[in-house]
């Protein structure tokens, strides 16, 4: 098994996630794209853990999974709050803080 396989898969998933974050307007869809990005990073961590033969990368991947779960919880709470106040979750309507 070549190291390039895993790393290229991670790079492709990361790029797709970045495209989703840029292109999507719906806040829930942006959160899904962020999950894609975090999973790409986790894939790289696991690949390097296998490549170097120690488990530090796996421990880091577990921590990233935990932080991602917390991030989704808080993010969806904020999305619900925005929806309740404005009846819409379009991100381009949230421009009050633009200078």
């Amino acid at each position: 098994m070549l190291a390039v396989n895993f790393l290229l898969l991670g790079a492709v998933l990361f790029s797709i996630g970045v495209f989703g974050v840029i292109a999507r307007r719906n806040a829930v869809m942006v959160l899904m794209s962020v999950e894609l990005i975090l999973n790409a990073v986790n894939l790289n961590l696991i690949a390097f853990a296998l490549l170097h033969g120690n488990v530090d990368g796996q421990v880091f991947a577990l921590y990233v999974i935990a932080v991602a779960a917390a991030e989704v919880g808080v993010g969806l709470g904020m999305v619900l709050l925005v929806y309740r106040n404005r009846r819409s979750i379009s991100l381009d309507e949230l421009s009050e803080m633009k200078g």
Partner: protein
Amino acid sequence: MIVAADNINVAQNVAFGIIAFLMVFSALCVVTTKNVVHAALWLVLVLAGVAAQYVLAAAEFVAVSQVLVYVGAVMVLFLFGIMLTRAQIGKERGLNNKSWALGIPVALMLGGLLSYVIIDEFDDTTMPDAGPTPTEAIADNVLAPYLVPFLAISFILLAAAIGSIVLARKD
């Protein structure tokens, strides 16, 4: 370069290729579909594929955690978020920004740059043939050298739980 090497485990590579193709296709569907619920279901496929790749990379404990946390909990949370913030189920207009096409060159350039660097550095590095990782090794790492980040993670989870309750509760 990508698939050609001697002394390689053919079955492992074939499995990797099939799962990787499925994952990339599903990820493209996640960012292009017009239906939010379908996007969530495609995301399930991507996350399950990531778990399968972890098994192929001899990281069973992380794979099980991935299934438990992502496929089990995070997806339910996403579906709840979709149901609570949208009236209609089905195709929806205005899911994309007006300038969404700008994302294509950005993503292509980013992917090209990352792929160039990766291929340049790891052109024919082969993975060592590793057996399953004993969970004891992960536990030894979490509870000795990475204990402080572990405690920090538990505080983050506590703060996130309390914070989302405070944010989402109706007064």
